[in-house]
């Protein structure tokens, strides 16, 4: 488990899985002797929030130590947005490149190749759609919600829109992006003829499983941390309107 007085260097050395998390908090390497807490403070990151996210990321069964509702919604939104950027700019393009390289050098039939490349192209498109829907609609809505809830006199017009669209609906329509990706690994491991470049093939499989894990964690933060918090803010605003 990562703790605040640990050396940040030691934390990352012992848990290299933390590396992709750092850019999402705008934390750069070159920690020197600084502790986790010091590095967080230096980068203006809420230490408790970082610890909760990092530990939940490292251990699926981790139970939050701090009440996650204590963190501002905007911090959660910022983290999620940075994660999206990581998926779109780094994870997916990197994987796409490797998959194409793997297919090009393989002796798969046209049909088998088509299965993989069509799958990936369509998956990528659905993924991008999902994220842009979230960034254009859901996240700005959440930030506005937090802003309004801090005001003494929230905008009545905004409150009235609450009666039309609430976060619960979003949670229900929330796609399961990771399940489908896992099928691609199964296809490669179980049904396709073996690839000659097994080294590259293992890299693709490792990347796939890393991304699936990351997506599960991401969905977990959205569903378990963000959605309940937002639902609570909505309730409070609606009640405010009712009592007036």
């Amino acid at each position, binding site marked *: 488990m990562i703790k605040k007085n640990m050396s940040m260097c030691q934390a990352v050395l012992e848990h290299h899985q933390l590396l992709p998390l750092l850019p999402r908090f705008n934390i750069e390497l070159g920690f020197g002797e600084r502790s986790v807490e010091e590095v967080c403070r230096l980068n203006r990151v809420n230490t408790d929030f970082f610890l909760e996210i990092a530990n939940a990321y490292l251990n699926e069964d981790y139970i939050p130590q701090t009440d996650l509702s204590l963190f501002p919604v905007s911090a959660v939104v910022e983290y999620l947005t940075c994660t999206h950027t990581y998926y779109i700019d780094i994870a997916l393009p990197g994987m796409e490149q490797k998959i194409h390289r793997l297919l090009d050098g393989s002796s798969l039939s046209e*049909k088998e190749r088509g299965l993989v490349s069509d799958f990936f192209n369509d998956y990528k498109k659905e993924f991008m759609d999902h994220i842009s829907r979230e960034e254009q609609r859901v996240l700005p809505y959440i930030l506005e919600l937090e802003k309004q809830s801090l005001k003494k006199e929230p905008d009545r017009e905004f409150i009235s829109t609450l009666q039309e669209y609430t976060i619960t609906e979003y949670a229900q329509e929330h796609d399961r992006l990771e399940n489908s990706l896992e099928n691609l690994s199964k296809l490669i491991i179980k049904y396709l003829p073996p690839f000659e470049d097994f080294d590259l093939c293992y890299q693709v499989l490792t990347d796939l499983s890393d991304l699936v894990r990351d997506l599960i964690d991401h969905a977990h933060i959205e569903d378990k941390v963000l959605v309940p918090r937002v639902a609570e803010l909505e309730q409070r605003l609606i009640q405010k309107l009712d009592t007036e």
Partner: protein
Amino acid sequence: MRRVQFILAIDSYLVRKGMVAMLQRIPGASVLREFESIDLLTHYLQRHGTDFLIICDSLFLSATDLYLADPALLERTILLKQDPSSKNHGEAENRRNKIRDCIYLSEGKEEITGKISELLNPYFRNHREDNLFVLTEREKTIVRLVCMGFTNRQIAEKLFLSTHTVITHRKNIISKLGIKSVSGLTVYAIVNNIITIDEVTSKHGQ
């Protein structure tokens, strides 16, 4: 899959961690939070909900305010007791009669797991009835035909259905699997043995 949430309020560190370890091994159960004192628990439950609360005898005794504020919580409370004969007194004893179930420290793994699983059953029975993520035989047939390249109209003709019904089936398939594209559906069908690679029709040729 939705997981049934448990909150643990147990003052003994060893017992608490033991209970956490047990719950984590039961599919469908998840530990939301653990508490070792009644104050933090009460504070937490004022703002958040839980499916079940597992609470030890000594904390239960001092949980008067908690149950005054939310009497319905009793029906979701599982009391953790030293042994079946130990009794609480007065008001706590009254409360004890209304709780959901008791777990005794003297009980073995099978008994405790059995009790927890019984609590979870109703949640997952509903899931099975709704068939939330599982395709019906009819839906599997339709997936097969879609992957073989048939159009909705052709599928309708083959199965003696209206096109409208086929479209409804396809919508249900999408919402069950969360897979929208034909390419995604094809890979799903292959890895779930609904179709073989040979049977799949491909725009890339055979």
